[in-house]
């Protein structure tokens, strides 16, 4: 169907503007860019999880064919460069700030995980750089490593950073402890559950890459890189690492092949490439191979939790208390401290009215790759915990899982939870009802019985999730320790010929902003979408922006565009009033035409645009020439997408293989601009959630700290035949805190789906818990160890 046939308005499934270049092989990803005299970088990485570096001998490598330069931590330190930072400071219960060990660009005297950066070789070709790296002689004194999360806080565990005794970076708490204890004391029933949230490795299909350049004539640095937020990268590289002053550093994130959080962060390799480009006086290119990505991209999740839910005799929740140990890896990555704290603890109320909540989180260093935000970031961990314990409560009380949820749903808004968040709007029962209908909940017993006849086990699992998106009101996050504000910017430039460029601080790496944003602008200005160009990802073009993560580009990024468009309309009306000799209040702007109300005087958009630039006879005191407006939008609240996912599984007890028979997702994202794109976001999120629940697991050897799942042979990525087609639906409550009423859709699938799947599997097997990923081996073992009665 052509876009002409479906229309381009808000709410239409407009086909994407960006697709043409991608389906014809004309995208421009970082690794596609080549420069004259370009050199290649290769990073020598630590083969040990923990070792002292006694010395690095680069002499023979320096004379290897093609070598241009070799850099070690000493060069970086001698040049006065700072280390990488964590942009969010979390404090412990006792008020002390988190304990941060230094995070050098290249290791100085210690390596702290397998894959840690030891030296950078720059050569004429990648092959030569790689060969030379093999000739570098590093004298390591290997040390015992702290790997298994559960053991890392013991007093004899090897230390990752001397600054953090017992490897504990922070002991954080949220909620009201005494109220929670009091509620537990009078509870009729207490449900307890221990949960593991498995470590994941993000695996955007485009590996990280960088191209660093230095212009000697102007003293300007340019970094092309795979970033979700090029302006934040520039700020960190300039203000904290000290590569170059901000105005002498340009960061460009061109087409980026997926991020899922992993490309928010500022990493050592990209930093080293742009810094060293000036040292060698030539452009430096680096592209991670997949094995390097496994070792050095920030990983996700990795929690151990104990949860307790207090209920009264009617199944009403009274209180929740949670103790979580969160793995931070060897160094704090850019936002890692915020993920298991403010992005996690604040969502533990789920969709439920829980009067008292208390959560404690210990952030713990280990000799593994840094752990930071991965699609959902904290919210999947919270949702998993809440929806698993609610399901367990249903089973232990004998109350139907849907009914126990209904009894506890929040029904009036705004609702202040005990853990900071104030939910603004929602209708949780509506999505539960719609999901149950789509999943044919009524027909489940018959399907289960039929499966049983074939010797198969069927189960059904719910997940009624909520998340907080649209990150975030700057004042709110500032008070919680963020080092940045989380507003967004937009600039609308109307050209004299009437077409429009929109500059946004959001960044698209698959989300289709070039389409959705253009849809908004075109429908507002009454011009065709092809006359709207969305410009993003270049710090020289867009003045500043906070980038894309936390499902913020719609609710925050588009709100900034709306604000800029409001200003455009105000000015355009002034010009129209002047040109048509009418009062501003009498000008109506509709479908691309300015009309003087009650007359037949009109002026089309293109004519007005031209007049704005010819500016003939403008009263210059009142109207400036030109038509260009910018806006910064700071949200007033988080947004709260919510919904219900239901998963039906069938398990083969002979093999332990779980097949997803039906996956229903009903989501309330508020206003939807382009349903085709939104559905695509949900599909991708669910696939990652199914990956977490059934397939994916980042595993380190607990003794040696070697990454065991370091390639696609060992880390099980979801393939097409692991997944079903998905069954999606939407409900809608408009978000009251932004002009378009949008809530955000990028992460919901990954947040909601894992507990639905595990609830279905435990239902099928009649067991209390199974660890993610519920691989066939684990499922089979669980079947074998079931009590006999249940097995029959």
């Amino acid at each position, binding site marked *: *169907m052509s876009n002409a046939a479906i229309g381009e308005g808000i709410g239409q499934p407009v*086909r*994407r503007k*960006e*697709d*043409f*270049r*991608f*389906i*014809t*092989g*004309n*995208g*421009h*990803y970082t*690794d*596609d860019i*080549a420069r004259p005299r370009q050199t290649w970088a290769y990073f020598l990485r630590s083969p040990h999880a923990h070792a002292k570096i006694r010395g690095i001998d680069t002499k023979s490598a320096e004379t290897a064919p093609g070598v241009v330069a070799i850099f070690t931590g000493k060069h970086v330190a001698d040049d006065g460069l700072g280390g990488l930072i964590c942009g969010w400071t979390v404090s412990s219960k006792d008020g002390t700030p988190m304990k941060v060990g230094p995070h050098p660009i290249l290791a100085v005297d210690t390596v702290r995980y397998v894959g840690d950066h030891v030296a950078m070789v720059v050569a004429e070709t990648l*092959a030569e750089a790689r060969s030379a790296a093999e000739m570098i002689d590093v004298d390591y004194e290997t040390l015992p490593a702290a790997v298994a999360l559960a053991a890392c806080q013991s007093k004899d565990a090897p230390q990752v950073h001397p600054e953090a005794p017992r490897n504990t970076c922070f002991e954080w708490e949220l909620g009201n402890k005494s109220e929670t204890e009091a509620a537990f004391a009078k509870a009729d029933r207490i449900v307890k559950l221990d949960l593991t949230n498995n470590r994941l490795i993000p*695996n*955007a*299909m*485009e*590996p990280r890459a960088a191209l660093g350049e230095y212009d000697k004539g102007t003293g300007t640095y340019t970094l092309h890189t795979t970033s979700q937020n090029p302006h934040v990268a520039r700020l960190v590289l300039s203000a904290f690492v000290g590569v170059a002053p901000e105005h002498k550093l340009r960061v460009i994130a061109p*087409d*980026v*092949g*997926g991020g*899922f959080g992993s490309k928010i962060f500022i990493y050592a390799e990209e930093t080293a490439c742009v810094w060293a480009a000036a040292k060698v006086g030539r452009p430096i290119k680096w*592209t991670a*191979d*997949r*094995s390097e990505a496994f070792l050095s991209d920030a990983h996700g999740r990795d929690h151990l939790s104990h949860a307790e839910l207090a209920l009264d005799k009617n199944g009403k929740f009274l209180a929740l208390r949670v103790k979580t140990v969160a793995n931070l890896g060897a160094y704090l990555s850019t936002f890692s401290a915020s993920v298991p704290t403010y992005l996690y603890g604040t969502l533990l109320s789920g969709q439920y009215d829980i009067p008292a909540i208390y959560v404690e989180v210990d952030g713990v260093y280990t000799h593994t790759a840094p752990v930071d935000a991965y699609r959902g970031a904290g919210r999947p961990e919270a949702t998993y915990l809440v929806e698993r314990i609610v399901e367990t409560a249903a089973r232990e009380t004998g109350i139907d899982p849907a009914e126990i949820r209904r009894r506890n749903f929040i029904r009036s808004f705004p609702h202040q939870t005990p853990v900071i968040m104030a939910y603004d709007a929602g209708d949780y029962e509506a999505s539960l009802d719609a999901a149950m209908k789509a999943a044919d909940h009524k027909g489940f017993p018959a399907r289960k019985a039929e499966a049983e006849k074939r010797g198969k086990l069927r189960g059904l699992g719910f997940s009624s999730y909520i998340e907080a998106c649209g990150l975030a009101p700057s004042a709110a996050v500032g008070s919680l320790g963020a080092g940045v504000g989380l507003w967004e910017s937009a600039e609308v430039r109307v050209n004299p010929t009437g077409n429009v460029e929109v500059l946004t601080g959001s960044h698209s*790496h*698959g*989300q*289709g902003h070039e389409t959705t944003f253009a849809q908004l602008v075109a429908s507002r200005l009454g011009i065709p979408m092809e006359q709207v160009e969305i410009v993003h990802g270049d710090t020289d073009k867009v003045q500043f922006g906070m980038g894309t993560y936390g499902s913020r580009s719609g609710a925050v990024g588009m709100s900034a565009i709306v604000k800029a468009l409001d200003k455009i309309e105000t000015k355009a009306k002034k010009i129209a009033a002047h040109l048509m000799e009418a009062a501003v209040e009498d000008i109506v702007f509709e479908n691309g035409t300015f009309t003087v109300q009650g007359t037949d005087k009109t002026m089309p958009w293109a004519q007005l645009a031209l007049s704005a630039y010819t500016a003939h006879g403008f009263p210059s005191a009142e109207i400036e020439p030109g038509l260009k407006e910018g806006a910064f939008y700071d949200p007033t609240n988080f947004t709260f997408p919510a919904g219900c996912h239901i998963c039906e599984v069938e398990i083969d007890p002979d093999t332990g293989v779980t097949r997803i028979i039906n996956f229903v997702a009903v989501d309330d994202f508020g206003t939807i601009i382009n349903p*085709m*794109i939104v*559905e*695509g976001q949900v*599909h*991708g*999120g*669910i*696939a*990652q959630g199914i990956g977490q629940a059934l397939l994916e697991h980042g595993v380190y050897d607990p003794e040696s700290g070697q990454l065991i799942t370091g*390639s*696609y*042979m060992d880390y099980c*990525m*979801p*393939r*097409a*035949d692991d*997944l079903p*087609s*998905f069954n999606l639906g939407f409900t809608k409550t408009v978000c009251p805190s932004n002009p378009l009423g949008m809530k955000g859709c990028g992460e919901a*699938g990954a947040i909601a789906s894992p507990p639905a799947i595990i609830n279905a599997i435990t239902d099928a097997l009649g067991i209390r818990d199974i660890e993610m990923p519920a691989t066939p081996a684990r499922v089979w073992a669980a079947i074998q160890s079931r009590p006999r009665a249940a097995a029959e």
Partner: protein
Amino acid sequence: MPVVAMTVNGKPASADVEARTLLVHYIREQLGLTGTHVGCDTSQCGACVVHVDGRAVKSCAILAVQAEGAEIVTVEGLAKNGELHPVQQAFREHHGLQCGFCTPGMIMTAVDLIRRKPNLDEKTVREELEGNICRCTGYHNIVKAILAASQEMR
């Protein structure tokens, strides 16, 4: 250095290559055809799929010298006379791509799949995509696009 000669997207191409050069690196770096991508180093992701003598091949799994004399088609050579191939059209129509990184490999795989198995069903498409990983789409719309293209081309 050995010289390799092959036909790429209908045009003769020949160059000196190091014997260890993979076909994908030859295509990307020496010919400058960057539509073909590299997503892994274990020949599993399929981002690098091109056609070698009409068959889908992972270009990271063969050396450039092994393609001596071959007829290579990359994603850049799929559209004919400015007309998109039906599989390309279907990917756009059914939103079978998000970040676009896996897309060239997916499309080249799909074209070959439809040639080999004109009567596709969902199960077969999913099984046949075993060697192509997409992290963005959950495959839902890729499967839809391939089924639609195979209908269209019947």
